[in-house]
């Protein structure tokens, strides 16, 4: 690892130059290799832009929540309490894994029984790579975009892939 200041050959991973004490940490930071990678690393979630979240109250029934999802053509609704506070997320995957074939008469039960509580979130300033990492790690397709504990928007994996597609083929 050659110090850009004095040319001294340091051990790889050194934090400062052994000869001139120059800070070398920036040399180890990842750098973008191409356009898409650069965009994911530098652009915030707000460029997508996030969609307005479709919300339901925790006391609404599963039937109402499912209707809301179908009417709005979304795969997930946010469950919000008093003051718009985020309580959970209810998605198609929850319908598949927590309801279908497992419960009788679930339509009239409150959606809060079947939602995923305290979901992973991002803020509008977080970088796209950070959001992608969260989606990959947890297998999430939707992330609420938060400001001061209130969901201001929602991003989906489709939004990010659409953005990547546009960069790739423009």
């Amino acid at each position, binding site marked *: 690892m050659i110090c850009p200041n004095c040319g001294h050959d340091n051990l790889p991973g050194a934090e400062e130059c052994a000869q001139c004490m120059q800070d070398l940490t920036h040399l180890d*930071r*990842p750098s*973008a*290799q*191409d*356009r*898409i*990678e650069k965009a*994911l*690393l530098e652009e915030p979630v707000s460029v997508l832009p996030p969609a307005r979240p479709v919300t339901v109250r925790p006391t609404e029934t599963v039937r109402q929540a*499912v*209707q809301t*999802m*179908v009417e709005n053509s979304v*795969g997930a609704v946010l469950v919000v309490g008093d003051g718009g506070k985020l309580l959970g997320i209810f998605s*198609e*995957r929850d*319908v*598949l*894994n927590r*309801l*279908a*074939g497992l419960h009788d008469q679930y*339509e009239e039960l409150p959606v809060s029984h079947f939602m995923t509580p305290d979901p992973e979130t991002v*803020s509008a*300033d*977080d*970088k796209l*790579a*950070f959001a*992608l*990492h969260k*989606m*990959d790690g947890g*297998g999430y*397709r939707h992330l609420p975009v938060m400001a001061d504990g209130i969901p201001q928007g929602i991003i989906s*994996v*489709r939004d*990010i*892939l*659409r953005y*990547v*597609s546009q*960069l*790739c*083929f423009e």
Partner: protein
Amino acid sequence: MDLTKNLKIESVCRLNMSTPVTLSPRDSVRQAVAVMQQHRIGCVVVVQDGKLAGIFTERDLLKRIVAVGRPLSLTLAECMTAKPVTVRSSDPIGKAMRCMTEGGYRHLPVLDEQDRVVGVLSVRRIVRYLVEHFPQTVYNQPPDPNAVQKDRDGA
């Protein structure tokens, strides 16, 4: 490592998709749901006489069964997505990605040259491909970029 170029030249077969879970059009929605829950997948492929007949996804379950109160005893033939959009295993990954974002599909059956279903490409697999492509960039993102210590350490 030029991702833009690789998306155009690397083909879908490179993604090592797992063998698809297939059912017949006469199987019930209940069976499909059980299989999807067991394998933790979002769709099953419906095959008849060795050819792709349709797919049944969690979206179909939501819209065509749960939302309208139809029973799980229906056959897949009655509620699957017939003639779904497909990709070839030789198609570039970028093409499959664009197909998904434009059509809003999260799963694409992958066919070989003889029109046999060789896999299902999920949106999740595409995300994994992107992340694998530049692990340094993505995995070096801090767990919480806004983490700020509220109090000073020490005195």
